[in-house]
């Protein structure tokens, strides 16, 4: 019997070796085929599909004259260098990343647009996602949409990668006057504009008036109120999951302690997280959580919202996008106010003032023709003009980025026009926060801030490392990611030296199967 099995084992060995050789041959052959296949650039293919159903149109409000009138079709066409509507209709593909409530307003804007520009046919794809790789992979295959709505920071990365059109080459510099400075500033990188904003978003402090008599203005007041709430109502003063954070909300406190995410060292943008500001900010929240027990370290912002709705916590930090849910739960008890001043430094906690807006993909990514680019320009100018932005504010309470719409909204609040009445005061608190905010950095380096912060902040709040170690670790991880992704130049050590220990590790793993065959396992 053993003769048979020995020979079978030998055969077995040769079987696997043949298998490996066969696999390698196939890989080599296929790589050759692949290189041939992709030697020429992916040819862009224009996809034409049927039109979207058009819905009812609505009344258009009166237009006020300004240097650039983006509400009247004729002036819009002139802006993009068209004297009259072209004879043949033009189709543009649009990826719409509005939420279902924001879409109610977008449908009306779209209907009006198609009335005023019958020659532009808009193919809308709802349900697209903000700031993900979906747009990138589509671009790689040359099938990106011509118009895409994205957040300013991820738009910045796309622009730096050459996937997004530089609008400054197509529109006059005076275009910036149409928009709220912080918003258009968000969409500017090294002096060129790559997108037009349609709203501004940032976090504010929501509080439950039942527990909190007045909005705390400084962190000391915040602590005092939170302790008070704890004692009397036995609910959490604050619910802020600092450890689940990726640094979007924490950046406000970091700024409050005088920190800044980036600085320039001999002409190169470098991270600047390892500062006393970061250490103090981390310790501030550590103190509130572990020593004073007035902050609940929530595992996710969703849980914070649930506790706030269930009157289990007095204060949370969230954006206006969850406003409806809190209105429905708390009603008049809901209060909103800007983040407090950090008592230690006297500086205000400044949240990121981000913005979402419309950008146009480069012809290489979307295969768009020059005429389609012109139509796209008209489209994005139109959907970010006064009427559209104001409609977005009225329907979905998005904070307007269009200057005229922003002022109109402010006057509405002053005159207490919003229904129900207490909503006006809440909105005022929210809009007030717009003055105390920091620009949402839109340089490509920003993409690598989030995970670096999260890794070390979560370890710090798990009480595994000190604040100093966390700050240092964060910056080091940030620098490493930048180097890995070629955004920070440094000389890599010569490869062979430090590779040896790892190769030693790999050798036993690879040798094991052969050893096994020789001796009895």
């Amino acid at each position, binding site marked *: 019997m053993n003769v048979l099995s020995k020979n079978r084992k030998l055969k077995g060995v040769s079987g696997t070796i043949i*298998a490996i050789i066969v696999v390698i041959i196939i890989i080599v052959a296929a790589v050759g085929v692949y290189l041939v296949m992709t030697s020429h650039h992916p040819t862009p293919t224009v996809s034409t599909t049927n039109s979207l159903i058009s819905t009812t149109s609505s009344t258009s409000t009166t237009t006020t004259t300004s240097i650039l009138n983006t509400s009247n079709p004729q002036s819009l066409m002139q802006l993009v260098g068209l004297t009259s509507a072209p004879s043949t209709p033009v189709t543009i593909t649009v990826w719409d990343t509005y939420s279902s409530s924001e879409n109610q307003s977008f449908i009306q804007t779209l209907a009006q647009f198609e009335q005023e520009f019958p020659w532009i046919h808009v193919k809308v794809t709802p349900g697209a996602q903000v700031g993900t790789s979906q747009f990138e992979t589509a671009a790689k295959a040359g*099938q990106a949409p011509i118009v895409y709505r994205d957040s300013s920071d991820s738009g910045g990365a796309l622009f730096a990668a050459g996937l997004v059109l530089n609008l400054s080459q197509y529109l006059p510099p005076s275009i910036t006057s149409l928009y709220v400075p912080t918003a258009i500033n968000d969409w500017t990188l090294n002096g060129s504009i790559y997108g037009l904003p349609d709203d501004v978003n940032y976090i504010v402090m929501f509080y439950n008036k039942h527990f909190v008599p007045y909005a705390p203005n400084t962190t000391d007041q915040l602590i005092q109120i939170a302790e008070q709430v704890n004692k009397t109502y036995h609910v959490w003063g604050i619910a802020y999951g600092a450890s689940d954070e990726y640094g979007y909300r924490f950046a406000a406190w970091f700024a409050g302690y005088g920190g800044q995410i980036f600085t320039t060292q001999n002409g190169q943008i470098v991270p600047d997280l390892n500062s006393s500001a970061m250490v103090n900010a981390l310790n501030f929240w550590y103190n509130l959580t572990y020593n004073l027990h007035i902050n609940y370290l929530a595992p996710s912002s969703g849980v914070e919202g649930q506790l706030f709705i269930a009157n289990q916590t007095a204060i949370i930090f969230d954006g206006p996008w969850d406003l409806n849910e809190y209105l429905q739960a708390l009603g008049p008890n809901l209060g909103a106010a800007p983040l407090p001043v950090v008592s230690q430094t006297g500086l205000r906690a400044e949240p990121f003032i981000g913005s979402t807006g419309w950008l146009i993909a480069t012809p290489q990514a979307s295969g768009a023709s020059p005429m389609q680019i012109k139509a796209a320009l008209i489209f994005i100018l139109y959907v970010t003009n006064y009427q559209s932005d104001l409609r977005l504010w009225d329907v979905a309470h998005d904070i307007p980025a269009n200057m005229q719409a922003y002022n109109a909204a402010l006057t509405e609040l002053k005159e207490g026009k919003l229904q129900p009445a207490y909503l006006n005061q809440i909105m005022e608190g929210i809009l007030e926060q717009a003055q105390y905010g920091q620009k949402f950095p839109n340089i490509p380096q920003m993409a690598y801030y989030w995970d670096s912060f999260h890794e070390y902040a979560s370890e710090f709040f798990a009480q595994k490392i000190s604040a100093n170690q966390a700050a240092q670790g964060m910056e080091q991880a940030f620098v490493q990611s930048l180097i890995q992704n070629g955004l920070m130049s440094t000389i890599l050590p010569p490869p062979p030296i430090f590779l040896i220990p790892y190769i030693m590790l790999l050798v036993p793993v690879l040798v094991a199967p052969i050893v096994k065959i020789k001796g009895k396992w």
Partner: protein
Amino acid sequence: MIQVKKHKIFKILRLGISYIVLIIMAIASIFPLYYVFMTSFSNAPNLISLAISDLFPKHLYFTAYKELLTTNLYGGSFPLWLRNSLILAGSTAVISVLLALITGYALSRLDIPAKKTLATFIYIVTFFPYTATAVPLYLLFAKFHLLNYIGLILAYTPGTSIFAAFIAKLSIDSIPASYEEIAMIDGLSRFQAFLRIIMRLALPVVALTAILGFSGAYLDFALAYSFLLPNIRAWTATIGLYYMAGLINPASAPAYNLFAAGAVIMGIPLMALFIVSQKMMTRAYSNLAGVKQ
């Protein structure tokens, strides 16, 4: 007498423990799903799992189900997407079965040069993770204009059918060759004999592959989203559900009650398929033990 008594006690003990374990595991299986049902019957969009009071709700709301089944977004609606999902999953199941059984038949019956190397190669290649196949697959299918249902089915089938092919091989091994030979003599070609006789005799494996193929395609979100996004009427139930529940764009608080209601509706056909094929499927696996010692 003592001997019999000891044996009896041991039997009672064994059965007792068995029932306790089964009951505990049964409760553990139902407990989380009970929450899904409770969330689907609430009108507030949050995910019920925190407050004990929600465990026994005072009032059941059908708002989530109503909204899910009635809203119409740009021509797309949940019933339409559910139908798309059933068609996609059904055809994926059929093609996975065909691919798995044909391969299993070839591995079991036909003598093919370097069969062992081929089988090892096919098996080992599936070790490659999804994270690495997602982008290349998208680019490949985009190049061949396959970003549609056909492409999706092609992308879903190999995973299931390669695993199922090996089980099919074992099951066909245990079927005597004379069954198909007789059919061939009676006037069927080898392929017809495979279709009408072997597929019928290897029904347990067919059932198993069908389930794996169906649920794989039915529940997928990532691949379907990247392929079907541009055409809202072609969406599958999972994409539609993620979009309606606001999970695609976290710009607004997600409507978890909608999400739970969608999951419940999607669960019904899946449960039905499981129960229908569960008996057949259990026999399929029995052939696994038939592997030659």
